[in-house]
C-alpha cells in the first residue's frame, strides 16, 4: 500500500503542480552503529525528497547502494548480507508534516509516516527541525532504527559487531521544484 501511495505521490510531483512543491535531490542521510567491538558509520549524500505543501506530505527515496563506508568489507556485508540491496535496492518514507508554517524562520515538527526498508514497512515518528533559508528550507533531525524491526538478519558470529539499534541522522536542503 505504501509503495502505491509513494509512486502516486512521486508521479504527481513529477507531472504537475510544481509551484506547490519543493525538492531536495542531494539530501544527506548517515547512520551509526556503536558497539564495544567496533563502530560502523556510513553516509548517503544522494537522497531524494519532495514536499507537497498542498497536502503536507513528504516523500523520501534513497538507494541503499549509495551509502559510502570507510572500509570495503563493511560496504560488501551491508549490501550483500544485511540489506540485500539487489533484492531491496531502495528505502522509501512517506509521511506528513503537520501544520507546516512556511512563514516561520524555525520550527520543530513531529513527522509521522511509514518507512519501507528491506521489504518491511513500519510506522515512524521523527522529530524534525525546519529552518527557513533563502529560496527554501533545511530539514534536519535524527531517529533510531531497530535492526530486528526490518527483518535484517545478522549472522551469530557478527552480532557483537552490529548494534541492535542504529542511529540515523539526516539533512535536506529543499529548493523550489521545477518539473518537466
Amino acid at each position, binding site marked *: 500500500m505504501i509503495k502505491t501511495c509513494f509512486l502516486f505521490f512521486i508521479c504527481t510531483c513529477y507531472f504537475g503542480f510544481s509551484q506547490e512543491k519543493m525538492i531536495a535531490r*542531494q539530501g*544527506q542521510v548517515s547512520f551509526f552503529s556503536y558497539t564495544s567491538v567496533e563502530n560502523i558509520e556510513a553516509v548517503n549524500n*544522494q537522497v531524494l525528497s519532495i514536499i507537497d505543501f498542498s497536502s503536507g506530505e513528504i516523500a523520501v527515496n534513497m*538507494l541503499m*547502494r*549509495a551509502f559510502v563506508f570507510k*572500509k570495503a568489507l563493511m560496504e560488501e556485508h551491508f549490501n550483500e548480507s544485511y540489506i540485500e540491496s539487489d533484492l531491496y*535496492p531502495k528505502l522509501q518514507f512517506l509521511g506528513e508534516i503537520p501544520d507546516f508554517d512556511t512563514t516561520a524562520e524555525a520550527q520543530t515538527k513531529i513527522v509521522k509516516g511509514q518507512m519501507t526498508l528491506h521489504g518491511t514497512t513500519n510506522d515512524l515518528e521523527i522529530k524534525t527541525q525546519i529552518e527557513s533559508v533563502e529560496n527554501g528550507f533545511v530539514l534536519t533531525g535524527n531517529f533510531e532504527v531497530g535492526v530486528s524491526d526490518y527483518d535484517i538478519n545478522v549472522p551469530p558470529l557478527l552480532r557483537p559487531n552490529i548494534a541492535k539499534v542504529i542511529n540515523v541522522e539526516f539533512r535536506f536542503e529543499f529548493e523550489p521544484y521545477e518539473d*518537466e
Partner: protein
Amino acid sequence: MNNRFKIAIIGLLALLASCLYLYFEFNRLPEDIFTADTDVKITSRTLAKSFKTNETRANAEFVEKTIEVVGSIEEITNINNRYTLLLQGRSKANYVICDLSASELEEVKKLQLGQTVRIKGICAGYLMDVIMLNCIIING
C-alpha cells in the same frame, strides 16, 4: 629438529598468515576509481533514457559498473561539503548526478556550466535521476 617442533612452526606460520589475511581484508579500502577498468562508455542522455525506459534492465546493465559518461554540465552544487555535477539527462528535470571524489576539489573549480565533460564513476542506480558515485573528471 624433531617432528613436534616442525608441526609447531608450521602451525604458527599458518596462524600468522591467517591473522595477516584477516587484518588486510578487514582494512581493505574501496577500489581505486583511477585504476579501475571502465565497463561502459556512454552519453549522459542515453544513460538517463535507459533507466527511464526500463529501470530493471538498466539496473542489471549499469549498477555497480565502472562507467565513463559524457555530458553537458547543467549544474555544479556544493551541498553538505560535497561537490556534485548534474549532467544533462533526457529532459530538464532529469539528470545524471555525479558525486565527485574528494580528489577532484581543485579540478571542479575549473569547470563551467554548459561545458561537456567526461566523468568516470560507479553507477549506484536510479531515483528521479541516475546516481553516480566516487566520480573523477577524466577531461574537462
